[in-house]
């Protein structure tokens, strides 16, 4: 890990909280994300994992807290206090967002190539041939055949749609990728391939990522560090192997021991 090289975390979250009426979404969530690091957020359904991710991306407005982000130019901004124009620009350029359901993250009625090219064109690419070449390159990197570039995502399998969504996000080489259950709803062999792919991409590109998952095996494979959430709060955090092999908090112990061993 390059944590020792850079002296500042990419993302520094403090006291993030969100209530839905009287219901607690998340409370006092804090963590640092260092360059090149993958942070896993695990916990049972309803523990506030997705709320944390939505607060980060601005899809949900947090009630309080601070999300300090170190931009590519070195300046530090509080993402929660950015105006909408700057926040949307950030999400298009330096950040990527991979949804649990590919349908939410893709344009289903345009071809795979257009899906991958959209972010490029939004950032000012005006050369059809070059956009298409970049799209082809990225489709190859996520193992989608060249011949499928003009097909609609509708005709893709679930795993391919998920890979297309990843290509669509990574084409502009974002620095931070937020992923919500990237392997959710896929069968195990497809999951395994997607995990291999993600691991390769994260290493090649030096990406930083926050990955929300309920699947401890996914967390084990991808994440360098883990946050364990329960009832909207972080109950344990640490290195992935440490948390999974020697959980301290009773809930973390329960979570780890609940995994079926085939």
């Amino acid at each position: 890990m390059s944590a020792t090289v850079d002296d500042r975390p990419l993302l520094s979250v403090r006291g993030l909280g969100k209530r839905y009426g009287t219901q607690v979404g998340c409370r006092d969530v804090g963590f640092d994300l260092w360059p090149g690091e993958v942070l896993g957020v695990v916990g049972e359904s309803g523990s506030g994992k997705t709320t944390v991710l939505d607060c980060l991306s601005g899809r949900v407005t947090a009630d309080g807290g601070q999300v300090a982000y170190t931009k590519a130019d070195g300046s530090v901004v509080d993402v929660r206090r950015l105006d909408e124009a700057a926040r949307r620009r950030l999400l298009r350029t330096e950040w990527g967002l991979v949804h649990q359901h590919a349908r939410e993250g893709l344009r289903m009625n345009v071809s795979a190539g257009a899906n991958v090219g959209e972010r490029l064109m939004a950032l000012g690419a005006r050369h059809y041939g070059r956009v298409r070449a970049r799209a082809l390159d990225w489709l190859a990197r996520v193992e989608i055949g060249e011949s499928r570039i003009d097909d609609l995502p509708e005709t893709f399998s679930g795993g391919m749609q998920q890979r297309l969504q990843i290509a669509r996000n990574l084409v502009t080489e974002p620095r931070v990728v937020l992923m919500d259950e990237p392997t959710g709803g896929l069968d195990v062999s497809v999951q395994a391939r997607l995990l291999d792919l993600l691991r390769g991409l994260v290493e090649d590109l030096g990406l930083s990522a926050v990955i929300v998952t309920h699947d401890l095996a996914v967390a084990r494979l991808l994440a360098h560090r883990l946050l364990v959430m329960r009832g909207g709060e972080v109950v344990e955090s640490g290195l992935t192997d440490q948390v999974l092999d020697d959980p301290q908090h009773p809930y973390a112990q329960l979570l780890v021991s609940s995994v079926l061993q085939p």
Partner: protein
Amino acid sequence: MTHYNFAYLDEQTKRMIRRAVLKAVAVPGYQVPFGSREMPLSYGWGTGGVQVTASVIGPTDVLKVIDQGADDTTNAVSIRKFFARTTGVATTTSTEAATLIQTRHRIPETALREGQILVLQVPIPEPLRWLEPREAETRKMHALEEYGVMYVRLYEDITRHGRVAQTYEYPVIVDGRYLMRPSPIPKFDNPKLDRSPALLLFGAGREKRIYAVPPWTAVKSLDFDDHPFEVEHWDRPCDLCGARGAFLDELIVDDKGGRLFICSDTDFCARRRPAADPPRAMW
């Protein structure tokens, strides 16, 4: 005449529409909302254009009304008669003689000049409408200049058809800022929008929007560097007047496959023909 206010609309309404027009001229390409009135013609027949025309017309104006380039189709005749009755202004079919032209679907072939006003009837003003159904979201996209999705559409066209297949309502960027839908004119007319000496006003009655391209404003049709914008062209001249480089309509003349290609701009075509030629229209 005595039963109606000048140009049908009451003075308060005209002032409201003029304020919207002024704002539209001040912010080229931006869609200004206005309080569209019920007009004595149905939506889709030019209620927006008629209201804009009614608000800017004066007693000394000379009015021309065209529909698909023709001065003698139902819509053009009705609207021209409407203003002749409610204002008493002079009407004409000559593009050069007119000071105010209301049009649907075409910009005249004869070059416009400074001081003229062209009013275009608009069915759907929002260029992003079929890509983004939410009005709040499209307004935000305009505000933040997020027009990438429009290029996605062009990309799809080139991918599927080898070229941009859109032939009318071809999207443009006005003054380097706002994305604009230039009403259903053929893309053939898009170059006439660019640095037009005449003031171009767009009125959408049902959608309650007015927008404008002030004289000499840059208007650029969207394209890719390697797929530049192109207009339609015909490899034959007009069968009536012999004009080349004009927008031609295909006309089926018998049941044996006979057809004519003639100028869609009837005034332009008639003026090019010898005086002895048969009647000005053939249908």
